[in-house]
């Protein structure tokens, strides 16, 4: 594979000439194909393309992307749909990225081509897979993609998120919301608990006195638990009830017809049920044989390359990133390491040791935001935390407000970094 690459970069092997009958073959640039236009994929595409010398194609069916991060703020009424939705047009134009608006259906790793349902193929020298997550609908008995049209998961931003907001806004006082939280590992560890905070914010703002939110959690603890618990007590006393497995005994399933969540120790009738199922890497990566038994894809922490195919890099929620959580920030950080390493291979770019960062902000109530984050590096075969931090309980209101300004500033920054 290496010799092929050198031939290609060097300009010119008979093989390349045979495959690409173009007169200007001597100028052919090495080809990067990126599958998936979320924060991981779009960032790699931009960062590889912006310095030239590589032909970059982004395969992403959507014309505009709605971020999962800050979709809870949309739910809570803090942001509009437009504010969390971003077009690919700017980066396509500014950096010469070809945007192929189709869904890739498969990868042929031997031939190094991406396939489409139409029969079309796209060849690559290097491939980046950033397919995000797929949901394991059957991890909750009674749940399915069909049932999700009534009991939304809203864990992939889009119509599901809008459906959840409509359902939330339609509730009358005295309503019960049940959220089935996901088991580890999943996208956005504090996300379910920020979502519950936003639901409570909406109910409180509408003057609900008797509505309640029950979280049925398969985990014994969760991200920023102390901070959320403190915030819920302070802002929404008596409204939110979190149940760990000792309290509910295990999730037995959902019944969409009777709007019931069944657990070992009791059933809950609800007016709104939000099921966030277990998760796995996007299908295209699993079908290509790049995932292990966990359902996610092992990578080399030095460069984000797949552990089983040196021509493929995997970033974002689909990969196993060691101590890094699955988040938009993490995907963006991994993508920059990936882009640097790919430019090192394809365009003789300088390379430096990989380093990664993440911060996750969570809004609990207006002007009350907390954060958790860390720095990471490749160590002992995985991406390992070198330093971490978390907001403290009992912080003063000024600091929490400042943290919310930082949260909004970060969002403006990261979307400018990815989509402009």
């Amino acid at each position: 594979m290496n010799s092929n690459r050198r031939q290609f970069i060097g300009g010119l092997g008979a093989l390349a000439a045979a495959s690409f009958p173009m007169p200007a073959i001597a100028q052919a640039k090495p080809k990067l194909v990126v599958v998936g236009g979320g924060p991981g994929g779009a960032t790699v595409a931009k960062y590889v393309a912006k310095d030239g010398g590589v032909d970059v194609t982004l395969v992403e069916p959507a014309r505009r992307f709605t971020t999962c991060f800050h979709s809870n703020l949309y739910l809570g009424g803090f942001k509009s749909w437009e504010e969390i939705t971003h077009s690919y047009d700017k980066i396509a134009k500014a950096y010469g990225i070809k945007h192929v608006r189709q869904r890739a259906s498969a990868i042929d790793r031997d031939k190094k081509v991406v396939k489409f349902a139409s029969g079309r193929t796209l060849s690559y020298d290097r491939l980046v897979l950033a397919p995000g997550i797929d949901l394991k609908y059957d991890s909750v008995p009674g749940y399915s993609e069909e049932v999700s049209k009534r009991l939304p998961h809203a864990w992939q931003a889009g119509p599901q998120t809008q459906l959840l907001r409509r359902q939330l806004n339609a509730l009358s006082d005295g309503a019960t919301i049940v959220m089935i939280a996901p088991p580890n590992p999943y996208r956005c560890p504090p996300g379910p608990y920020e979502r519950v905070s936003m639901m409570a914010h909406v109910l409180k703002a509408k003057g609900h006195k008797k509505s309640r939110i029950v979280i049925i959690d398969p985990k014994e603890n969760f991200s920023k638990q102390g901070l959320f618990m403190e915030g819920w007590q302070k802002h929404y006393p008596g409204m939110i009830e979190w149940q760990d497995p000792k309290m509910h005994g295990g999730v037995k399933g959902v019944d969409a017809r009777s709007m019931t969540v069944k657990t070992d120790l009791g059933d809950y009738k609800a007016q709104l049920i939000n099921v966030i199922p277990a998760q796995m890497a996007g299908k295209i990566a699993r079908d290509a044989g790049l995932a292990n038994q966990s359902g996610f894809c092992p990578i080399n922490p030095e460069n984000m390359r797949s552990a089983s195919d040196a021509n493929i890099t995997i970033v974002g929620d689909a990969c196993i990133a060691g101590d890094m959580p699955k988040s938009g920030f993490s995907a963006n950080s991994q993508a920059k390491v990936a882009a640097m390493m790919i430019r090192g291979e394809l365009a003789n770019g300088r390379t430096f040791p990989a380093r990664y960062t993440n911060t996750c902000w969570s809004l609990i109530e207006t002007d009350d935001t907390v954060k958790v984050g860390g720095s990471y590096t490749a160590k002992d075969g995985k991406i390992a935390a070198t330093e971490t931090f978390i907001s403290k309980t009992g912080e003063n209101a000024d600091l929490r407000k400042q943290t919310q300004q930082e949260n909004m500033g970060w969002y403006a920054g990261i979307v400018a970094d990815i989509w402009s």
Partner: protein
Amino acid sequence: MRCSGAGRIAASIAMSFVASWPTAALAEGDRALGEYLSSECVTCHQLSGKYQGIPPIVGWPEQSFVEIMDEYRQKKRDNPVMQTIAGKFSRDEIAALAAYFGSVKSKN
């Protein structure tokens, strides 16, 4: 990178920060290194220099940049995100970042 974060920072402080860095010696930062390292910063600090809740850091005098990062490393400045980020950079890396961001002009 070879020892744990806290230990590394403690060691760095002991060795390097008895006094602040002599900034005159940091004038010649490696701009290419700075450009790569900057990718971590521009997730929050916009390269255009636009302010939307997080302060812009482009076009600063290099010496000010180094001094402020030094203060985050020593935890004289509060923000834990910046303490964590600044804490892992070596003096050469901070100089590289200062050289890079110093060379970028704000579009605002």
